[in-house]
């Protein structure tokens, strides 16, 4: 009989608290949002299930969680905690991304830079709320709207906040269609929203091949901290555009990136144990995350309006909102908002330019913040 009692003491019932139950509920909500609402299902579903797995209570003497050295989950989480997975994801993103639109209209690259304002405003906001400098930098990168970049920088600067930062980044990325439209409409007039832009020109194969090499050299030489992320992004893109490594590019953008996404999403979810996740810090991080997305969107839109003061060929300011690097969701939001005003105005292609520039921009910001903090 005592053996039975001993066993009951090892079950999840005996080792769980209300926090674990709450996190399991959050995991279930993520799974619901992924399946029923189609909100970033490739990420929310693994994260949601990981959150459930990570919050099953167990005895301290059993190595089960991502934080217990020697457990299976610990080794999977190694790719997150050491920042291995994000550059691998970037390789896949590079192999998927077509930079043609950006190459055909280079001035739209600047919108990708302007939207990074969200990162630095959030950085200052986090400092204001009392976070340490490294923590504030890791929180600030949520404003880049780029999950892998947020995980990469958090793993380097504030590993103890990684779970909260990753969840905040991915949650708000899923909520881009909710957060961005009000900001975009608030900052633009109907006349501005009706501006039509020229369709992108045809880009030669050589331009597409030269671009990833040159862009990497420029970014890595000026901000070496961005080497891992921008390097893998551009390498993936070169595999795609070279035309001679189609097999590698195909693998990078399909099976390879899928495997890494599964491992990353699941282990990030499993890292959200109530004991480490349900803290006042997490509340602050979530509040700052929402603000950072709104600020990043506003910065892109306002910069597009600023550009229109000096250029003959006007830019639809809505396109500026795509400077946040949630690819391709923010570009889709631009198309949707533009479409509401004029059903014949197709902004999607033009919005993809700042969108992919935003990916490069947020990776560079991560590199800058990392360099500054580890000086």
């Amino acid at each position, binding site marked *: 009989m005592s053996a039975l009692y001993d066993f009951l003491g090892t079950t999840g019932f005996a080792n769980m608290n209300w926090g674990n139950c709450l996190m399991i509920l959050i995991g279930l909500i993520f799974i619901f949002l992924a399946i029923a609402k189609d909100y970033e299902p490739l990420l929310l579903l693994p994260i949601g299930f990981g959150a459930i797995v990570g919050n099953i209570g167990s005895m301290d003497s059993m190595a089960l969680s991502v934080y217990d050295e020697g457990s299976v989950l610990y080794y999977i989480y190694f790719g997150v905690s050491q920042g291995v997975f994000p550059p691998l994801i970037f390789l896949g993103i590079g192999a998927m991304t077509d930079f043609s639109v*950006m*190459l055909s209209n*280079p*001035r739209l*690259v*600047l919108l*990708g*830079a302007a939207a*990074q*304002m969200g*990162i*630095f*405003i959030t*950085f*200052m906001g986090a*400092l*204001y*709320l*009392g*976070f*340490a*400098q490294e923590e*504030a930098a890791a929180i600030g990168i949520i404003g880049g709207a780029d999950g892998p970049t947020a995980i990469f920088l958090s793993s380097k600067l504030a590993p103890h906040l990684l779970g909260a930062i990753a969840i905040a980044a991915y949650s708000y990325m899923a909520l881009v269609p909710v957060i961005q439209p009000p900001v975009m409409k608030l900052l633009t007039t109907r006349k501005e929203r009706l501006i039509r832009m020229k369709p992108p020109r045809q880009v*030669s*194969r*050589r*331009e597409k091949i*030269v*671009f990833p090499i*040159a*862009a990497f050299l*420029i*970014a890595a030489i*000026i*901000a070496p901290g961005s080497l891992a992320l921008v390097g893998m992004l551009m390498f993936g893109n070169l595999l795609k555009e*070279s*035309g*001679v490594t*189609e097999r590698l590019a195909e693998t990078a953008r399909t099976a390879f990136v899928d495997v890494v996404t599964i491992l990353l999403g699941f282990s990030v979810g499993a890292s959200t144990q109530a004991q480490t996740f349900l*803290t*006042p*810090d997490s509340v*602050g991080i979530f509040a700052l995350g929402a603000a950072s997305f709104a600020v990043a969107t506003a910065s892109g839109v306002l910069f597009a309006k600023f550009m229109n003061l000096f250029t003959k060929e006007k830019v639809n300011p809505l396109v500026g909102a795509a400077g946040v690097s949630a690819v391709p969701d923010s570009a889709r939001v631009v198309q949707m908002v533009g479409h509401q005003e004029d059903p014949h105005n197709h902004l999607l292609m033009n919005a993809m330019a700042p969108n992919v*520039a935003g990916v*490069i*921009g947020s990776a*560079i*910001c991560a590199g*800058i*913040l990392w360099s*500054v903090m580890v000086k």
Partner: protein
Amino acid sequence: MPEFSSGIQQVIDGQGVPISVAGMTIVFSVLTTIAGFIAMLPKVLEWVNKVLPESAHHGPTSRPVPKTMPAPVTGDLSSIAAAALAYHTRHFQGTTTRDDTRPRHSPA
């Protein structure tokens, strides 16, 4: 977060403003350089193309078409029909007469 003091002093102590200004300046510098390079690229490649024509390189366009794939149809249907007629006329003259190959509703 709970034990920390918060406020403007934290932003000043954490060098929030200088880091942010420097960060934005660097991001703009990098992306402006990239944008400038992209704008210049077609002109540079125009010159390069004169020295090294693009067709000299191998790439996806020069890869052989798989045997299972049918040859691409590039002409319009009338020219294909004309070519088929010419082929038929040349190779099957023994089995058919010119008059047979002429369209029945032709005014000629």
